[in-house]
């Protein structure tokens, strides 16, 4: 599904990713762990198509080069990024944002747009799965949301848009244990053989709830070690210092 070869990414004349390689197949869950400044968020931004980065190397998504696609085209083709810091958009009702988003994606894929009624039915179902109160959906997008509410909202959007590749950028940071469990349940319930996850995190604790197939250690813009789920547990005990 995703094949990254010798990726280099530069921002403000600073080289962040320095020959990054990664292959993800449908149905797999990959975790990327690493210390601050190792390039984790840059990876998420580059994959989702944020502007400002100078890119070298190759990123193929389902056989096609990603660099030719705009941010919205990548989203429409099934790349989803759960933001580390979801943005507040004052005056925009959460429901309206979610519906606009879903319909943009549907339209791009030649599907019929959902009318208000059909959308409300769908969103009610999805939000109750995550234990999200309906009142929450009529609030302004992320405005005055707690950290946990913002992250739950990201997972709700993921479940709504049904992406092929979901990138979770430090979704666990700032979550209490209950919120963490809900987020993990949300991910686990969406996981299937056709879609894949790239989970970016500092800590092992999210991986206690979402079992990764592979754990990669990112350091100084490169993957320095790859292992199975046990690698995460080991890192929790020994820290990154031995590896980086």
């Amino acid at each position, binding site marked *: 599904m995703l094949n990254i070869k010798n990726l280099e990414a530069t921002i403000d004349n600073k080289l962040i990713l320095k020959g990054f390689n990664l292959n993800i197949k449908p149905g797999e869950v990959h975790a990327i762990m690493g210390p601050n400044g190792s390039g984790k968020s840059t990876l998420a931004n580059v994959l*989702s*198509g944020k502007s400002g980065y100078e890119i070298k190397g190759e990123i193929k998504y389902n056989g096609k080069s990603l660099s030719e696609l705009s*941010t919205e085209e990548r989203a429409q083709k099934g790349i989803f990024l759960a933001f580390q810091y979801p943005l507040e*958009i004052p*005056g925009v009702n959460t429901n309206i944002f979610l519906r606009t988003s879903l319909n943009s994606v549907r339209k791009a894929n030649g599907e019929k747009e959902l009318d208000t009624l059909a959308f409300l039915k769908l969103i009610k179902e999805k939000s109750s799965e995550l234990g999200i109160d309906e009142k929450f959906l009529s609030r302004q997008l992320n405005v005055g949301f707690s950290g946990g509410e913002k992250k739950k909202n990201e997972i709700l959007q993921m479940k709504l848009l049904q992406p092929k590749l979901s990138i979770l950028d430090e979704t666990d940071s700032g979550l209490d244990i209950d919120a963490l469990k809900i987020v993990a349940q949300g991910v686990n319930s969406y996981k299937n053989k056709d879609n894949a996850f790239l989970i970016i995190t500092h800590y092992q604790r999210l991986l206690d709830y979402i079992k990764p197939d592979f754990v990669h250690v990112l350091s100084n813009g490169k993957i320095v070690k790859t292992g199975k789920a046990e690698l995460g547990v080991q890192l929790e005990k020994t820290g990154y210092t031995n590896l980086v």
Partner: protein
Amino acid sequence: MKAEDLKNNKEYKYGFTTEIENIKSPKGLSEETVKFISNIKKEPKWMLEWRLKAFNRLKVLKEPNWQKPKYPKINYQDLYYYSAPKSASEKPKSLDEIDPKILETYKKLGIPLDEQKRLNGIAVDAVFDSVSVATTFKDELTKKGIIFCSISEAIQKYPELVKKYLGSVIPLSDHYFATLNSAVFTDGSFVYIPPNTKCPMELSTYFRINASETGQFERTLIIADKGSYVSYLEGCTAPMRDENQLHAANVELIALDDAEIKYSTVQNWYPGDEKGVGGIYNFVTKRGACRGKNSKISWTQVETGSAITWKYPSCILQGDNSVGEFYSIAITNNFQKADTGTKMIHLGKNTKSKIISKGISAGNADNMYRGLVEIKNKAINSRNYTQCDSLLMGNKCGAHTIPYIKNGNATSTIEHEATTTKINEEQLYYCNQRGLDQEEAVSLIVNGFCKEVLQQLPMEFAVEAQKLVAISLEGSVG
């Protein structure tokens, strides 16, 4: 600019011209022109005298020039002050008698005058260049004693009401453009709501400038008698031309005891092209008097068109406990300029005013909020709250806020909040990542920014206004 270029400019969809035979006044501003207008409208003597008084006053007045957007000197002798479709010289008695070309024009604008099609139960007065061509739902309103007709008709039929109130809020000698309007105003709407009557439908006037080299000088007068309520909406469009056309309207509102007037404007005059050629000069005087106790006047405006918008819809809060409100969205793109805001003059006790202004500036445009809040010494226990937000798109545009605040007593309070923000790249990225393209993202964010104002509009027009907000900013990012 050639006609072909104009055709290629797809941004402004109301830019077409209707080929129609016109009756025009002699060119230029003179006593003859004033007499011509009064004569063609078969006005009574008192009306002509009123106009001539204004005309004489105009001779000693100077055009103001303190505004931020400057413009080349207007040659008042080079304009036509009256232009009317020939077919309307005898006012049509029913819709069947209206020139089909005019009906077609309004249909293209999305304003069906055909009552069978009932525009969501909204009564419409349609003003084409200098004359009112049709007023719908007249009979239904008459049953309730509501008068909704053109001002020309009101001068003939209800002279006592017109004499009593015309010029009572905007005095004849107020300032250059108001006085000019008083001398040469051609048509506009007249509304009278009798005591204790709630007007059962939205009243609406649709202004269309069609003829070239023509100024539009409309005059609107709305009177809400004791305990009555009316919601009124005006819309405006004009063809695309490479000349600048002047629109200098006067609008007067009077609310008596316990009455409420809600006045909404969706202004979409031709803004000029991307290089700033052509467009309407929208120099308008709008003023409401809350004359009675507990009365309320609320202005809502969505200003997206015009080359220059220069207006301050105001409230004079004379009655005790009266309330004035001003909700505004002003969008300027390309080379458009706006200098707009409001004046809230508190005279009565316990009077309240609220100002919510949202200015959006893109391209090379310049957007200015200018407002006066004045609480006089006898207006004890009065309050004002003002919030001015500016949103900038790109780095060549400008936003300015100039509040004038005068508080004449110690028991009153005035609050002013202002913010200026640039459209946030991170927000756009977030929207893009959710599948929205750039235009959709901008539209969503900007509509969110304007929400407090948009929700003041009558339902039927809120949707239209949201679309207009998005269209006005097309191509301004990225």
